[in-house]
């Protein structure tokens, strides 16, 4: 079979895997963003123990490889009685890891917003939590969009690691097809093209979102 015929024939199986990949990415980024926000706020505005915990968490999850974290979840926890399915382990691992990175991006965004905002909000009578929620965070979220887009793309690429813990995502299907047909190069070339297309597509959309939410003159602080 020619390359194109082969590529066409394996597409259905690959698309099944792609579905899982996209789900892992979507759930991962949602968990990561939520967790990241909590961690960033805890690190900047929390009291000593909370701030210390957030710092430790971020350093730990950013300082160790994602694959090791996935292994701990998938191969390690059964020894303590908690058996996770590959997809659950992948979701938890990707979410926890992404949370640490998102926290750092958000922290950078919050800190680049002048402290004057916080002071002004407090002087108007807003409580600390209200000032964070209604004044600082909305601005920070707007500033963090480029980094967040970056994190989303990274997450999409890192879902491929779930293959190593037996999750049925894109890489997993590709490997199976390769093992059955021995046409490894072509299978992985198709997979590479699929990732390429999705990443370029996603980047275009995120660039548009960035331009759409940009306030001229706002970034130059």
């Amino acid at each position: 079979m020619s390359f194109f015929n082969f590529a066409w024939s394996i597409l259905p199986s690959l698309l099944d895997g792609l579905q899982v990949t996209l789900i892992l990415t979507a759930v991962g980024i949602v968990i990561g963003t939520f967790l990241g926000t909590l961690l960033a706020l805890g690190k900047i505005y929390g009291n000593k123990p909370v701030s210390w915990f957030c710092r430790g968490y971020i350093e730990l999850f950013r300082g160790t490889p994602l694959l090791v974290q996935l292994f701990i979840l998938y191969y390690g926890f059964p020894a303590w009685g908690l058996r996770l399915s590959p997809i659950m382990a992948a979701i938890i691992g990707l979410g926890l890891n992404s949370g640490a990175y998102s926290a750092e991006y958000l922290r950078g965004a919050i800190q680049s917003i002048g402290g004057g905002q916080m002071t002004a909000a407090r002087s108007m009578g807003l409580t600390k939590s209200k000032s964070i929620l209604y004044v600082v965070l909305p601005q920070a979220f707007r500033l963090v969009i480029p980094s967040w887009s970056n994190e989303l793309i990274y997450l999409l690429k890192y879902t491929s690691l779930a293959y190593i813990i037996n999750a049925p995502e894109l890489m997993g299907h590709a490997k199976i097809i390769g093992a059955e047909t021995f046409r490894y190069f072509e299978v992985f070339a198709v997979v590479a093209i699929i990732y390429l297309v999705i990443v370029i597509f996603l980047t275009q959309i995120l660039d548009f979102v960035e331009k759409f939410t940009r306030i001229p003159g706002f970034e130059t602080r």
Partner: protein
Amino acid sequence: MTSFIENLNFGWSILPALLNGTVITLELTFFSLLLGFGIGLPLGIGQVYGGNIVSRAISVYERVVRSIPLLVILMLVFYGLPSVGLNLPAFLAAVIGIGVRSSAYQSQIFRGAIQSIKSGQLLAARSVGMTRMQAIRDITIPQALRRAIPPWTNEFTIVLKDTPLAYALGVVELLRKGRYIIYSTFKPMVVFITAALIYFVLTRAGNSLLDYVNERLKIPGYESGRGMR
């Protein structure tokens, strides 16, 4: 259920066994970074000074390599190349895969560093009689390399944390060594956590070392790119 102290002792006792894996991990990191540097620096220079066509070609290369997951690159090199006749040992395939990926990122690091050197430098060098090549090689590049150290430190950390992917190719680096130990001792949590701590220590140590190098090579008043005031 073994006690915490027993687990601590166990973790300590397997450190020598994990050491072999750690050495392989460090070798992977070193050679991948080297390959990435060897390809990335010329690409960065080419992107800034190479003219329109070269610059665009490098952009495409960088874009493509950055969009593909590292695991796919590794699989292509290790499992895919044999289909077209090229059989590579696992370690070499891992170094090439991680190195090529790193070269794309490093090319951007060096491109940014070179572009941050004011063009006045090049002008001044030319006006003293240097050719363009001489000016780039003796004036711009040394300064750019200095500026590139902080982002390069980041790249070092990233490459170090990418090496466990070589596990998928069968390379016996730290993570796979850990797995082998688990097969005979059945204590996955302790082993993995110990391995994670080793990665953590390596990351910190490497960062500290590179920060020290950065400090020593820094020129006071110059690092912000604004020159002496």
